[in-house]
């Protein structure tokens, strides 16, 4: 039983292969290996698990499970629990507008970015720039002056500053890339950096 995760796994005692009878896949059915987004609450037994009972590896098809070996049920259950793991809800992130930084060669390119948390739980976010590229194909792998991080309570917002060291020999122009957030769901955050050289 996975408390309050919305997932119910029903297990039938007996040799694997005899039970349970095959069922039609219900609407909203989620097979193991799908992206763990949201799970319908109280949806009943809604997970297909493809487990190698000896190794715990997820291999083969659903048939491998039901038509599998007569390995000890306890071992099988341990493999099942271990392989599925508890649900870990992930932060969903998106950006309706690109983040824009400005700077000059040999200086720092920076700009503010609000982090608006519309979720019902606090969220810790670290924004990490990807390699940036200009129209001519020049790739700039930026180094940040420090972490652009925020811990945002539910329903609130915080402003972080994204700040990059600009190489002295970086040609002026517009560089585009993304701000990445590790282990989140959602779209990439577009990042644009304008480098002006007034020298």
């Amino acid at each position, binding site marked *: 039983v996975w*408390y309050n995760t919305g997932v119910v796994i029903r297990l039938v005692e007996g040799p694997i292969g005899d039970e349970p009878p095959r069922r039609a896949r219900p609407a909203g059915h989620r097979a193991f290996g799908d992206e763990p987004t*949201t799970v319908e609450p109280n949806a009943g037994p809604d997970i297909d698990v493809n487990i190698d009972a000896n190794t715990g590896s997820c291999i083969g098809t659903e048939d491998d499970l039901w038509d599998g070996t007569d390995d000890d049920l306890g071992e099988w259950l341990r493999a099942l629990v*271990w392989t599925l793991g508890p649900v870990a809800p992930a932060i969903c*992130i*998106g950006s309706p507008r690109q983040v824009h930084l400005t700077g000059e060669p040999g200086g720092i390119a920076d700009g503010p970015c609000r982090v608006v948390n519309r*979720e019902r*739980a606090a969220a810790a976010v670290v924004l*990490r720039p990807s390699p940036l590229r200009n129209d001519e194909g020049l*790739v700039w792998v930026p180094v940040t002056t420090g972490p652009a991080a925020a811990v945002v309570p539910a329903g609130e917002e915080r402003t972080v500053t994204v700040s990059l060291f600009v190489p002295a*020999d970086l040609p002026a122009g517009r560089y585009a890339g993304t701000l990445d957030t590790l282990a989140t769901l959602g779209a990439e955050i577009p990042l644009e950096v304008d480098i002006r050289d007034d020298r």
Partner: protein
Amino acid sequence: VTTAEQPHVELDDGGEGRTTGALLGSLVARLQTLQLVSGAQTIGSLVAGLARLGQDAARTAEGARVREALESTRIAANGATLWSTLGMDAAWSRFPPSPVLEDMRNDLALLLAVDLEPVIAEVDVIDPAIHVGPLREAAPIECLDLIVGMWAYSSEIVAVVETLTATATVQEVRAPPFGGSDGPVLR
């Protein structure tokens, strides 16, 4: 420029994913799972999860810089030797990666939740305690001890890795390691 038009990032799961109840359920499930899996499985999944996070982080600019800088140090060679000689390459790669970052964020959110007490009061938590044998006499450990310990542990790693990779911040121009580029790389 109005506030709404300013650059911003939105965190929005539609109100269905990260609720205090769901996060509490995730934590309780992890604690209860510990009684069903072996120590090797637990550690293996944590190691695999950290390694998966490292692979993801290496796709960012700073992660790529750190990894590339480490590749030029003794750490890379000795790590590869230990990895293969002790069979860790074969072992760790077989464990399903634990979502270490999601779990950490979710546990942090629980610690910050304003509605934790009423949610716990409504929850029928069925003995979430971790059952252990009489390994030793109990020495009290508090949640804050763990947090400070994790801070010290991660600070130490950051300090060491940043020290080892400090030379990687030197500006240089060379061939691009990232696909699809036509020009040189500046860092």
